[in-house]
């Protein structure tokens, strides 16, 4: 790389798509204009387990404008079922008469208008044979499957049984110990933009307009399901109205809508309901966890054991296995972990913002807080005593780890020193006051990617890649990287994303996209500079004739050298042809050369911060929160939060601040508000709407202070860029619950923490 990352990044830049978004000009998938669409409406199951025994479609077909009704009887064998989020089997929809979970798609009604489709969907009569359904942990009929820890693509080192025995021995011998169980609830991302799909056929070619975190994945998976060549499928999603993991995997709806459009010979558009968003896509499954920590009297951990149980559907063994993450946080000499999947009559869960870390770090960071009281030690000091610069599992060095500087800066700004360590000792008027803290961390992932960049003599550049604008600011970070690499103003760069006709980029998940996209863009820009420089030194009329091309840089819209000589792009670019266009691919260190071909086939290999051979790469952070609990009625409020993060070079502090803040607020939600309620008898979702599935409103997040701790990490990747999309939420639930303990003396080990648990 010829670029100094410091020169590229760090300047606060407003979103280049901000105006389009606030004026409505930004086209989300269902805003794309298609000619003469028909409209689809979904019929979903009202039981959680059983079989369909028959349909009576007569009333539905009698609704004026109804064109087609797809059921397993009519089309069941015409597509291949999609794979689950872990690449394994998952629940089906119209493929058979089997009902796996509440709200499963069982018919698709297509009509001339949205209204007729919805009316007719309500008139499809389905006869079913229901079987007793198991809702969740503890219900009769659930099946527990023990699994060795490890999330997809990662393997736990060592022998579980040996480690467990060693942990047990260390635990038994330790002077201070903690043995506790925690629970987290199911949660849904169900973002504001609904799970829409519009399919348009043009001869053999299919275009799918659907909000997606993985354009090339949507393209290839849809083709596979339909049994057609992926080259014939184009997926478009220029803007995504929130995804958080819910739009990363193939869901069942897409292929059925494509089939409906094929049968009709007319575009078909599906805009499902908000309630359907709770059952036709994925969610964060509930967990149960067991944590055992032991320590010396001065707080040094002597052992750690963390076991989790996670709910999944009957056919899928999807799991997040967050012990992979929690086992790397502190310097415990003996670490043992285990994970179990509990199969119930539920939909298959999937990735949701910091999938592994949100539930599992809640348990670990709550346990660390409990241990600090058992030791009579400040909880920040306990983390300091157990801080380490080496991954405690693999022994590899962390590429960088500024956990304690994050704590120190957050604590200073927060006023942690004013905390009276005694629980239930601080009060303000009628309100009990508590201070709590927790660590935050997230692995740094990076994947292969490709990009096409063109530069015109006018000094305007175009960047095209199938990356994803989920609301994170991806258009802007790509524009910043290209502009600063090419010596242009940000406004001179036009960015095209969200279209599988553009060069592939992996799924926007695991906070990889910032690192993934910047590296390939920088590489393409280096190529452009190189070609301009070589053309210039070869040209007799250039001021740089016969100079060393390596001495030329792009800055201020011109090719320049250190002596102050310059040549504008209007002269430099035409020398390479009419306009300069490059295509570049980047495969990060540690991935095989085949990674690019695999990406083109819809398989994104990822270099994961937790399983590299050279270093372990994580970003770190610290939260300090204040809670107030009413002395009589026990409502819990969070008047202020200070969080500090050290996550390498910050590309755009403006959008980074929003990412961190959004994560922190979602963490408040995770601690106090969110839970999908499952009816214990029928295993159905009860609160499938945004009135009853509560999330924070503005008044619940009055003061969020974000500190970005400067960090140079030249081992994580060449540009020192770490993803920040997920770290903000990690640990917040524990920090709040820890503060609630400090305020009240009551330890709540099951989320969400609500008034009734404190009475």
């Amino acid at each position: 790389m010829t670029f100094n990352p410091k020169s590229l990044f760090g300047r606060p830049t407003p979103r280049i798509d901000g105006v389009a978004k606030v004026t409505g000009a930004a086209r989300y998938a269902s805003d794309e204009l298609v000619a003469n669409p028909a409209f689809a409406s979904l019929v979903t199951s009202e039981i959680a387990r059983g079989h369909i025994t028959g349909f009576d479609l007569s009333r539905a077909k009698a609704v004026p404008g109804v064109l087609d009704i797809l059921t397993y009887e009519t089309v069941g064998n015409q597509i291949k079922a999609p794979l689950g989020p872990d690449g394994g089997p998952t629940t089906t929809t119209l493929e058979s008469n089997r009902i796996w979970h509440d709200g499963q798609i069982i018919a698709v009604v297509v009509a001339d208008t949205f209204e007729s489709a919805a009316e007719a969907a309500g008139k499809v009569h389905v006869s079913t044979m229901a079987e007793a359904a198991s809702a969740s942990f503890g219900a009769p009929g659930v099946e527990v499957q023990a699994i060795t820890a490890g999330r997809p693509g990662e393997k736990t080192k060592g022998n579980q049984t040996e480690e467990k025995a060693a942990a047990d021995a260390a635990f038994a011998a330790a002077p201070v110990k903690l043995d506790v169980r925690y629970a987290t609830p199911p949660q849904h991302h169900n973002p504001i933009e609904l799970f829409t799909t519009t399919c348009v056929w043009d001869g053999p070619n299919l275009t799918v307009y659907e909000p997606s975190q993985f354009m090339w994945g949507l393209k290839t998976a849809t083709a596979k399901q339909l049994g057609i060549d992926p080259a014939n499928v184009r997926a478009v999603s220029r803007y995504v109205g929130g995804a958080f993991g819910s739009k990363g995997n193939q869901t069942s709806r897409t292929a059925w809508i494509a089939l409906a459009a094929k049968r009709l010979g007319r575009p078909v558009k599906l805009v499902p309901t908000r309630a359907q968003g709770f059952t036709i896509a994925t969610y964060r499954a509930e967990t149960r966890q067991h944590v055992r920590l032991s320590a010396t009297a001065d707080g040094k951990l002597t052992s750690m054991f963390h076991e989790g149980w996670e709910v999944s559907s009957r056919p899928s063994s999807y799991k997040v296995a967050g012990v992979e993450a929690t086992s790397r946080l502190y310097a415990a000499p003996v670490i043992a972990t285990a994970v179990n999947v509990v199969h119930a009559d539920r939909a298959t869960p999937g990735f949701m913002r910091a999938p592994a870390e949100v539930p599992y770090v809640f348990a670990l960071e709550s346990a660390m807080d409990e241990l600090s009281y058992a030791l009579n030690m400040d909880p920040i000091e306990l983390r300091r005593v157990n801080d380490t610069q080496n991954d405690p599992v693999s022994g590899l060095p962390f590429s960088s780890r500024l956990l304690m500087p994050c704590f120190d800066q957050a604590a200073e700004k927060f006023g942690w020193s004013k905390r009276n360590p005694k629980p239930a000792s601080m009060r303000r008027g009628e309100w009990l006051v508590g201070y709590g803290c927790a660590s935050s961390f997230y692995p740094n992932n990076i994947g292969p990617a490709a990009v096409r960049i063109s530069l015109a003599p006018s000094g305007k550049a175009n960047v095209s890649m199938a990356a994803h604008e989920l609301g994170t600011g991806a258009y802007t970070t790509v524009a910043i990287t290209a502009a600063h690499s090419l010596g242009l103003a940000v406004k001179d760069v036009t960015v095209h994303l969200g279209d599988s006709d553009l060069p592939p980029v992996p799924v926007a998940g695991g906070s990889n996209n910032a690192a993934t996209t910047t590296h390939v863009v920088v590489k393409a820009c280096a190529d452009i500079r190189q070609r301009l420089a070589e053309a210039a030194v070869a040209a007799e009329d250039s001021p740089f004739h016969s100079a060393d091309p390596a001495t030329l840089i792009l800055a201020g819209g011109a090719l320049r050298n250190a002596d102050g000589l310059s040549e504008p792009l209007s002269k430099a670019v035409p020398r390479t042809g009419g306009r300069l266009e490059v295509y570049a691919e980047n495969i990060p260190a540690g991935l095989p050369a085949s990674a690019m071909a695999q990406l083109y086939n819809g398989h994104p290999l990822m270099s994961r911060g937790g399983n590299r051979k050279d270093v372990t790469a994580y970003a770190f952070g610290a939260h300090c929160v204040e809670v107030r609990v009413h002395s009589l009625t026990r409502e819990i409020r969070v008047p202020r939060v200070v969080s500090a993060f050290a996550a390498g070079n910050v590309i755009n502090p403006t959008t980074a601040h929003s990412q961190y803040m959004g994560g922190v607020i979602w963490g408040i939600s995770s601690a106090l508000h969110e839970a999908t309620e499952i009816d214990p008898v029928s295993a159905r979702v009860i609160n499938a709407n945004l009135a009853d599935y509560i999330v924070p409103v503005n008044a619940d997040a009055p003061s969020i202070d974000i500190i970005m701790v400067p960090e140079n990490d030249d081992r994580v990747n060449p540009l020192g860029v770490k993803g920040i999309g997920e770290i903000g939420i990690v640990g917040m639930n524990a920090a709040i619950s820890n503060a609630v303990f400090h305020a009240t003396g009551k330890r709540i080990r099951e989320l969400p923490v609500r008034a009734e648990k404190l009475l």
Partner: protein
Amino acid sequence: MRPFSYARATDLAQAVHLGRQTGQGQTDAPVQLLAGGTTLYDLMKLDVMVPDRLVDLGPLRPKLSSITPSAEGLHLGALAKMAHVAAHPVVQADYPALAQSLQLAASAQLRNMATLGGNVLQRTRCSYFRDPTWAACNKRNPGSGCAALTGFNRNHAVLGTDSSCIAQYPGDWAVALMALEADVSLTGPLGSRRLPFASLHRLAGGQPQFETNLQPGEVITAFFIPASKRAQRSVYVKVRDRTSYEFAIASAAVALEMDGDLVRQIRISLGGMAYRPWRAEGAEAVLTGKPLTEANAEAAGRAALAGAAGHGHNDYKLTLGPQTVVRALMQAKALPPASRKA
């Protein structure tokens, strides 16, 4: 989503005429009056209310939305918007519990749309009621059973329930109306009548599909809240899962008149835990003539929940309810005495 017809009532007589099939507040009545629409449209979109015809009361608004304070009390037109009433200086000064109960309800957008008449007729938030794919709901589908009894009932009632229905009345304003002993005025096919607000809502009594004592075609035209010293020294306390835009898990209104250190007159009502807007007369009796100490307040809180029964997830209300009453009592005590003479 179903077709329905829509008519605009040009005057009250026509509203009564068009609305004569409104039934007794049943969800399946074929004709529904339309005020702000924030309950009605919501439940129509959920397929819970499926009227054939809506009768829009909008054109009556100029006549039926006045806010008129007098020496005797406060007259409020039934079509007055929640937001306007909450912001009215006389309401805030002389009937603070009313203003607070409106201000703490729903969201700014909803308060700008919703009317007082529609507000008192809002329906329970029971999830099994609000989703017609649940077969067992006596309120929606008489005789079908009650899924909430064995289901998730965290925000169901602990007072005034029977085995036919344990739903909770969710509103705030009606709770304040109970403590301030309001009257409600109705006009129907048989003429006009005025009744104590306390007798508007019914208990389930094995027939939870009948929620109020409104007769077919009756339109709520106005509310009247008598002026009093205790109205001036009134509070509404709302406990909820988030800071704003959320229904109560418990609430209490208190109207207090002191005589030196002793309670001369007190009214206590409860929300977020009862089948209907709930007056806690037993708790009032505990305090009348006594000093308002913390111990007496706790005794009143316990009396307010006398006879309450939980159903599992909502057992916490048996503890939270009394605490909410204590909090409201202590807040009322901390207020300055009323400025009016009688």
